[in-house]
């Protein structure tokens, strides 16, 4: 019983960690989306230079462990740019976001390429510019096709946020570890935290599934990708 009372005391502390974790997830996914989508477009519609720059970017960020990227940015790049005072949380968002952009761009690229050439042809035949055709015809379809794959980014990013412990972001795992050190209670805390992650994972996937249902169109995109 003592354990439960102790744990209850710590709930507000852990809750702040939970908020940081959620903040990391949402901010990283958003950064990944904001950069990933234009990168996908660049890789398909861009010139040779743009295409190769993006390919190298994707290769780099997909080829490195999260922890190496975190160390590189937190101890290396940011201090070199005289930005040592940038909080770890921001560094983490930058790293997870830029890395997410690499993964997301490939999801979007696959989705865009799965759309038949005829859609662009028909749009252009009506007098749409290339940009209008992409904006009003290609993207609305591609985003729907990409959604299931994109949804899988959520659990990946969620579990990756725990690695931000390595640079001292005050997220859930960091706080749990501190709590373990203070209370000498280990297994119950770790297992409870694991439960929280699994719950977050489940809730997020449920929400994304609902979004998929809500944006689905009869007979469209089924079985694609």
């Amino acid at each position, binding site marked *: 019983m003592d354990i439960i009372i102790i744990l209850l005391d710590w709930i507000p502390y852990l809750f702040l960690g939970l908020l940081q974790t959620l903040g990391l997830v949402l901010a990283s996914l958003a950064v990944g989306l904001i950069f990933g989508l234009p990168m996908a477009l660049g890789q398909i519609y861009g010139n040779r230079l743009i295409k190769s720059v993006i390919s190298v970017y994707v290769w780099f960020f997909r080829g490195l462990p999260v922890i190496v990227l975190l160390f590189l940015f937190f101890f290396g790049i940011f201090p070199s740019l005289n930005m040592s005072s940038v909080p770890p949380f921001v560094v983490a968002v930058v790293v997870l976001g830029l890395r997410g952009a690499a993964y997301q761009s490939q999801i979007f690229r696959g989705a865009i390429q799965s759309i038949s050439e005829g859609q662009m042809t028909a749009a252009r035949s009506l007098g749409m510019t290339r940009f209008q055709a992409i904006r009003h015809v290609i993207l609305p379809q591609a985003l729907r096709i990409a959604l299931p794959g994109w949804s899988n980014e959520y659990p990946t990013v969620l579990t990756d*946020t725990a690695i931000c*412990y390595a640079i001292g972001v005050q997220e859930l795992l960091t706080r749990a570890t501190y709590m373990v050190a203070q209370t000498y209670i280990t*297994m119950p805390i770790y297992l409870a935290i694991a439960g929280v992650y699994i719950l977050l994972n489940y809730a997020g996937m449920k929400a994304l599934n609902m979004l998929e249902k809500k944006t689905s169109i009869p007979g469209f995109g089924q079985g694609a990708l």
Partner: protein
Amino acid sequence: MDTFVFLTTILLPALFDGLIVTLELIATAAPFGLLAGIGVAVGRTYGSRWISLPLRGYVAFIKGCPLLLLLFILYFGLPSIGIRLSPFLASVIGFIFCNSAYNSEYIRGALLSVKEGQMIAAQALGMSRWQSIRYIILPQALRRAIPGMTNEFIYLIKYSSLAFMITAVELTGAGKLVATKYFLFNETFVVIAIVYLFLVTVTTVAANMLEKKFAVPT
């Protein structure tokens, strides 16, 4: 200190030792991750409810729990119930859990995609259910699961870096220790990045060759 001297006399030797540990981690975890993955997938697909349900829970737990937390549980948590693991062993076990759970998903998907007629045809030849799975279904399924499993192998290379968080000094850890001591972070992590990019790129090329080799004409 001269960067060249730092590189050649301090960093590279340290990283080499770390790289050996990284490769040992991967080489130990990968085979068990594959075997356990096959076991979990077969159990989930063909086992009774008493087998498939716990396995489903196992996969859900491993996929939902951050790998780093899993490593903490194995290394910092288990001693509280009297189980002490070395950092290396705790890491390997964590990687096997993780690798097997994800592999099992790919293999299960592949098992389900093998046409029903294959099982019927095998049993018509007098094979038992187990023999049919072992000699007819699995060989087909594993081939189809190769792209997913090679992907997981590449993840294993990258996530092996987390072993450092429970004090197993592998590639990333070795570099971090040197970088902290000499305060040369950019140089150190650029070299580490090159090593990982090399490992991942070589593995990707090898994986593509493997996929081609085992591709079944459709």
